[in-house]
């Protein structure tokens, strides 16, 4: 009987076994369980917080406040989302509140999602023959070859700098989605849950961001 009760109380929608075990240890006050979570998520939390607040030190404070919120909320956590999604939701809420107090613009609440700007509409058009042309829709100047091996590309500091530079120029929503998906390795579902985006919106943001970063690398390889 008691087993049945605790099972229905903590896992109404099936938390993963790993989350379940961590939660039990956390609730029992095991410091190593907390350290495990901190090692896994803290650096990512600080980076995500940075898109809502103005400085690294404030982002660290926000993450710390979020961890306290996590600890205090442990008893109320019902396992309707994964532990990770729940933790990052607390983080974004904390960061948004802090960002508003700093009266800084909150990217995901204010931009309607896609960071659409005039440049976005044109960035892919110029490379193709325009409608009505005999070659409409075909490459005007096809992508050039990148004279590098995939291994060299992965290891090149210059390539990394190019990517960082291109990402820095993206709108905040595009940058965050690309960072979470392609740097932090989150699933689209996780990104949608934490940033409160629809699947479609998330894909549009990701696509525009990746397209611009690829374009920046193409320019870099063309001019080398």
């Amino acid at each position, binding site marked *: 009987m008691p087993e049945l009760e605790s099972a229905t109380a903590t896992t109404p929608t099936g938390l993963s076994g790993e989350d379940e075990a961590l939660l039990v240890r956390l609730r*029992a*006050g095991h410091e190593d369980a907390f350290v495990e979570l901190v090692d896994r998520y803290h650096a990512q939390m600080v980076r995500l917080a940075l898109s809502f607040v103005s400085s690294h030190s404030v982002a660290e404070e926000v993450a710390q406040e979020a*961890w306290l919120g996590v600890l*205090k909320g442990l008893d109320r956590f019902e396992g309707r989302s994964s532990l990770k999604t729940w933790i990052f939701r607390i983080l974004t809420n904390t960061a948004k509140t802090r960002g508003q107090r700093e009266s800084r613009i909150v990217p995901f609440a204010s931009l309607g999602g896609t960071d659409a700007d005039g440049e976005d509409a044109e960035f892919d058009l110029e490379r193709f023959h325009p409608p009505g042309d005999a070659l*409409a829709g075909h490459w005007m100047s096809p992508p050039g070859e990148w004279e590098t091996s995939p291994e060299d590309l992965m290891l090149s500091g210059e390539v990394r700098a190019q990517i960082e530079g291109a990402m820095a120029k993206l709108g905040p929503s595009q940058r965050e989605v690309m960072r979470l998906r392609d740097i932090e390795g989150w699933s689209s579902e996780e990104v949608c849950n934490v940033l409160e985006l629809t699947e479609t919106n998330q894909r549009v943001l990701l696509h525009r961001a990746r397209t611009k970063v690829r374009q920046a690398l193409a320019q870099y390889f063309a001019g080398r």
Partner: protein
Amino acid sequence: MAALSCHELVGVVTDYLEGALPEAGRDRFESHLAACPHCTRYLEQFRLTIAATGTLSEDVIEPAAKEDLLRVFRDWKASAAPETL
């Protein structure tokens, strides 16, 4: 169904990689690729871009930040109701 143009293909690369294209769309995408070396190269570069972006990951916690967090944890534990511990 009409063939996909290069321009259209470039617009749905992420949908393709995410498995978000309907079956017919995926077929059109792949038959275009089979006939178009430019778009094949583009897709390759798109994938390389994603892979190279993945190398930017760095999960470093500053020791001072970790110390602060351990203090937060110990304070929480000390103040939490005894029956939960």
